[in-house]
């Protein structure tokens, strides 16, 4: 029996209130008509209007999206390769160093990653801009992708791959036709994770960007350093809304797939008997 004790209910209620109240307040006060963000003066959507008319935010959003799509796609390819090497690659020279380099960026302070990459780009004489941010983001997010994908690779039955090879598949075909469909959910969530990390990053982007390309977090940062602003509240609300819709629909889709897989399994069992 699970006891729904008052203690558990209270700690969950207070905990989730702590997690969500700040964001709820942010969303509510983005519809405030007053410029003073903490004093309610009536409902208004004027800050959304000002936000849309502000080209600087729109430009920054476009740069951010471009960087996020490019870096998360590259990171997914490299990260999946790295996961495959880690799980299926067997022994090779420098394997310990390789797995160390996969796990280290996950715990590396962003200031160090950013500083070291900037010094590399300057040493190579590269112009800083979209390309350098993409390279930087790809490097740290490929490690997250490879952790997500390798946990899926570890858990799946290797004999399926071997069966495909025995039946005459080339290794590449076996990967494309057998392995990839099985690890696809992990690859997709790896891509989403890399995409979010890239959208979110302020510190590494500040180090690796040039004067011509400003990402949205950098733009938000320079605005919020001056204090609370209603325009940023409106922008935050839009971003929170997109994430909420995305996460809820992703979890509904995966739930539906799980139910469907279960039904398929039951149907297959019925067919077998």
């Amino acid at each position: 029996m699970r006891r729904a004790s008052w203690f558990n209910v209270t700690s969950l209620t207070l905990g989730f209130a702590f997690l969500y109240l700040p964001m709820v307040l942010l969303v509510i006060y983005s519809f405030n008509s007053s410029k003073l963000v903490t004093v309610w003066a009536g409902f208004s959507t004027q800050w959304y209007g000002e936000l849309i008319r502000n080209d600087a935010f729109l430009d920054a959003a476009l740069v951010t999206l471009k960087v996020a799509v490019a870096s998360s796609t590259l990171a997914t390819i490299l990260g999946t390769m790295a996961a495959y090497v880690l799980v299926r690659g067997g022994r090779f020279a420098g394997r310990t160093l390789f797995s160390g380099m996969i796990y280290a960026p996950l715990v590396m302070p962003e200031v160090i990653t950013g500083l070291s990459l900037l010094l590399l780009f300057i040493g190579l004489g590269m112009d800083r801009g979209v390309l350098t941010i993409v390279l930087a983001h790809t490097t740290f997010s490929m490690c997250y992708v490879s952790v997500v994908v390798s946990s899926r690779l570890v858990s799946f039955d290797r004999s399926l791959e071997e069966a495909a090879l025995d039946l005459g598949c080339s290794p590449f075909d076996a990967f494309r036709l057998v392995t990839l469909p099985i690890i696809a959910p992990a690859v997709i969530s790896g891509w989403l994770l890399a995409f979010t990390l890239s959208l979110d990053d302020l510190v590494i982007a500040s180090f690796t960007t040039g004067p011509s390309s400003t990402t949205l977090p950098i733009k938000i940062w320079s605005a919020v350093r001056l204090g609370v602003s209603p325009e940023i509240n409106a922008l935050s609300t839009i971003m929170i809304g997109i994430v909420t819709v995305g996460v809820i629909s992703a979890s509904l889709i995966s739930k539906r797939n799980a139910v469907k897989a279960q039904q398929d399994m039951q149907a297959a069992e019925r067919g077998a008997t």
Partner: protein
Amino acid sequence: MERHGRRLASAMNLRRFFLIAVPYGWLLALFLVPFFIVFKISLSDLALAIPPYTPTMKDGIGQMLSAFDFENFVFLTTDDLYWKAYLSSLQIALISTVLALLVGYPMAYGMARAPEEWRPTLMMLVILPFWTSFLIRVYAWVGILSNEGFLNQFLLWTGVINEPLTIMNTTTAVYIGIVYTYLPFMILPIYAALDRLDESLIEAAEDLGCSRSKAFWLVTVPLSRNGIIAGCFLVFIPALGEFVIPSLLGGSGTLMIGKVLFEEFFNNRDWPVASVVAVILLLILIVPIILFQRNQQRQAESDT
């Protein structure tokens, strides 16, 4: 036939080489090499040229080595700003980790004890903030903690206080910010450990005469130890080098090493000193990182 087989084998070897070499080469070039550059610059002198440090590779290896010195490292010990920043970062990270554990453990426990059908939803509620912009989540607290913020308005309205509290730009605000943003990292590993826990063990302890709280401390807590350790490291390690939270919520009232590094680099443009700060921060982090890896390995072994 045999020749064909050998050719196939060599094609496979080539493919395997390619598969390993591409991610390996990428990480070497963009992760390992940059560290050596940081290390190298930490040993060179500040010059007023751009890039603002004396290049040490141009005049041959011998001269490069003779130009290397630990001057910058010595400089760090002469100015007490730096060691104070390291100490206060350690202290802030440690206290925040303990606070996050105190908030996170009851939540994880409550989740593991919740009815089966609620758990996926509760899980999603914990993960959702993680997908939301970090910067925005920290920014949300500016409006709450400032002198005219929601918290002060609320407390003044209820009559608990007569004068607004100063929380913004103090260490307290940094604690709140770190606990808030890293709470999911604390909850998830503890929840995973508690979820796996065999409940009959607790029942057995109670049958054998343990009170409920005694069973909790003697059975539940030790069995969730790995989750607690993992959660603590996942909060402590990133908190130590944190930049956004102390800059936005801590203001000039808090000293943290991530902030010092950032300012040394962008405001003072002193690259060698910024590099030394980075190298020492890395040395401090190596111990918790190794302990964390060991804990993860032990956990992986006990699972199989």
